[in-house]
């Protein structure tokens, strides 16, 4: 009896030590400021979350090497939500209650960002979401900001180009991930508004190894004058390869998720001629020298590729912009007070980043318009401006 009680006591104590020991009691060192981040580092959105974390880590370290921010060391606390929004909702409690972070950057997926937001609002802490759906910033939510272009803008950019080339009837292939499903709805709305008919509307799973069945339907439907693939990562690559395999010569559009060198490297020759909207970063070398986005984009690309020996991705670029959006706001606010930083982010004006030039307002928590996208095409294994 005694033994069991003692054993249970030891177990309880061990559990507590493990829990508490893992995350030290919130004794805030005065000279540290904490960024909290919940990202999707495993699961379906891992291809997005991975460059996001790498970028954050890179800039936090770099800032600390040069004395931190306003003289305070930056500490990054990050957790993986496994691409499960409900899990993000639990992890954010840890960041807020236990790690006592001063700022949130993260929410790889729209689901995670939306699942987090009620707690963010309650805690009154500024939060820059990295996810893509329009709902994150429309209507503007007091404590949440958005850094990546709306999915809607992807549709607007692509379909404007289609119409300019006289294409009004297309086949759309979107994936069934959270991104694919919400983007698909937005594309349908944009298509209707711009007078583009989606003659064949098919879906696929991002883990599928073959989508020729869906594409064959588009190939054999004479109403399909172009194919628009709304996906990212491996899904987009498989679709691209299958389009080439079927010998489809129709114009082929991708969403901005494919604007990474990995896409070109893995899709190979099949990627030639593909048109897609991309942040300025991807064609930085082509920009005129006086373009404010040029130098920072080249710097980011050089730093990231040198450090991680891996391909540049737009999702990392968004994260870079989020970090500097915050850093800029902190400098203007003159400190880390949450409400003041929030106000400062909201009053950001003309801040150039790798993905656009941000001007926020109370009603606009994205601060970008469709002109932030460049329409690019793949030529000789590289992205070049399409026009």
């Amino acid at each position, binding site marked *: 009896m005694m033994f069991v009680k003692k054993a249970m006591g030891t177990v309880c104590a061990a559990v507590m030590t493990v829990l508490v020991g893992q995350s030290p009691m919130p004794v805030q060192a005065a000279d540290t400021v904490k960024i909290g981040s919940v990202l999707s580092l495993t699961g379906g959105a*891992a291809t997005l979350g991975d460059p996001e974390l790498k970028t954050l880590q890179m800039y936090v370290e770099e800032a600390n090497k040069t004395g931190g921010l306003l003289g305070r060391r930056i500490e990054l606390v990050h957790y993986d939500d496994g691409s499960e929004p409900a899990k993000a909702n639990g992890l954010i409690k840890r960041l807020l209650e236990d790690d006592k972070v001063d700022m949130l950057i993260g929410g790889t997926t729209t689901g995670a960002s939306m699942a987090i937001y009620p707690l963010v609002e309650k805690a009154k802490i500024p939060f820059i979401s990295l996810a893509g759906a329009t709902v994150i910033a429309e209507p503007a939510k007091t404590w949440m900001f958005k850094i990546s272009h709306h999915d809607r803008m992807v549709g607007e950019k692509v379909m404007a180009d289609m119409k300019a080339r006289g294409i009004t009837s297309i086949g759309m292939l979107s994936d069934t991930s959270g991104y694919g499903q919400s983007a698909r709805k937005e594309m349908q709305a944009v298509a209707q508004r711009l007078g583009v008919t989606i003659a064949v509307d098919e879906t696929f799973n991002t*883990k599928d190894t073959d989508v*020729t*069945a*869906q594409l*064959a339907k588009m190939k054999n439907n004479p109403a399909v004058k172009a194919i628009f693939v709304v996906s990212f990562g*491996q899904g987009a690559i*498989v679709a691209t390869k299958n389009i*080439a395999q079927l010998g489809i010569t129709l114009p082929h559009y991708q969403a901005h998720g494919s604007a990474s060198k990995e896409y070109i490297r893995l899709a190979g020759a099949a990627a030639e001629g593909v048109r897609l909207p991309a942040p300025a970063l991807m064609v930085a070398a082509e920009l005129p020298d006086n373009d404010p986005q040029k130098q920072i984009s080249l710097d980011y690309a050089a730093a990231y590729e040198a450090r991680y020996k891996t391909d540049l991705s737009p999702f990392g670029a968004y994260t870079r912009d989020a970090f500097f959006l915050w850093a800029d706001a902190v400098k203007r606010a003159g400190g880390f007070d949450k409400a003041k930083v929030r106000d400062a982010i909201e009053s950001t004006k003309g801040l150039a980043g790798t993905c656009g030039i941000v001007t926020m307002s109370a009603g606009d928590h994205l601060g970008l318009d469709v002109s932030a996208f460049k329409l690019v095409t793949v030529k000789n294994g590289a992205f070049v401006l399409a026009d």
Partner: protein
Amino acid sequence: MSSELLQFILSGVTLGATYTLAALGFSMIYNASGVINFAQGEFIMVGGMAASFLTAAGVPLPLACVLGVMVAGVIGWLIERFAIAPARDAEVASIIIITIGVSMIVRGFTEILLGKGAYALPHFSGEAPIALAGATILPQSLWVLAVCALIVAGLGLFFGRTRIGKGVLATSYNRLAAQLVGVDVRKVLTLSFVLSAAIGAVGGVLVTPIATVSFDTGVMLGLKGFVAATLGGLGSGPGAVFGGLFLGLIEALTAGYISSSYKDAVPFVLVFIVLVLRPQGLLGAKPTDRI
């Protein structure tokens, strides 16, 4: 036959060949040990990842492929030696958990070593599609089909003609009796793990040029392999071939004619129906119950 239908069939058969290779691995291990190896999908992934990594590192493609398959074979051996053999007498649920645990270890190490990015291999015989009555097929798909057929034929010879192959079969029918007539049951177990790991990895290597590979590719392929093996009848070689091809065709036809959103549900609905009507699978032998 419309060219559209032909395209669906070609795509279904290619998919099916991949599922077949996964299903064969399941069946072989099930036969030798009565274990459902939930790490089977990871062999496919390891084969593809290792070969891609080596190719990227400058190793010639054929050598990289062989090495990729060998890496998977060694992992298969390690799993049998250190995770399955010590748990001989555990219950079904416990062994399932062990294999799931092993799959997490393999996946985790791959992620740590090779990162989360996607990898691809060059196509073995170029990327120019072959036209066929209005439909097309990639040379790589022909590779998948041909090698799959070779493996099936090879396994047939192995189990039907060689002493050790017959030993494996004998063990699957009755372990004790096999032991009594002089079959080295331990060796049979090791062999079946190494062999199914290698077969899975061959599938991974063959399909990577078409489908690309990343550390988490194995999960879905493993599940589909399990479905295919169950459809055909667990432990039945012809069943695995039939189940794999059937599953691939059904998926392609569902995506083509019914709903691409629900094509992933179809295999599971199907396996449900088959199990209810014919619990031993479509080609499986009627199970006998031991009391």
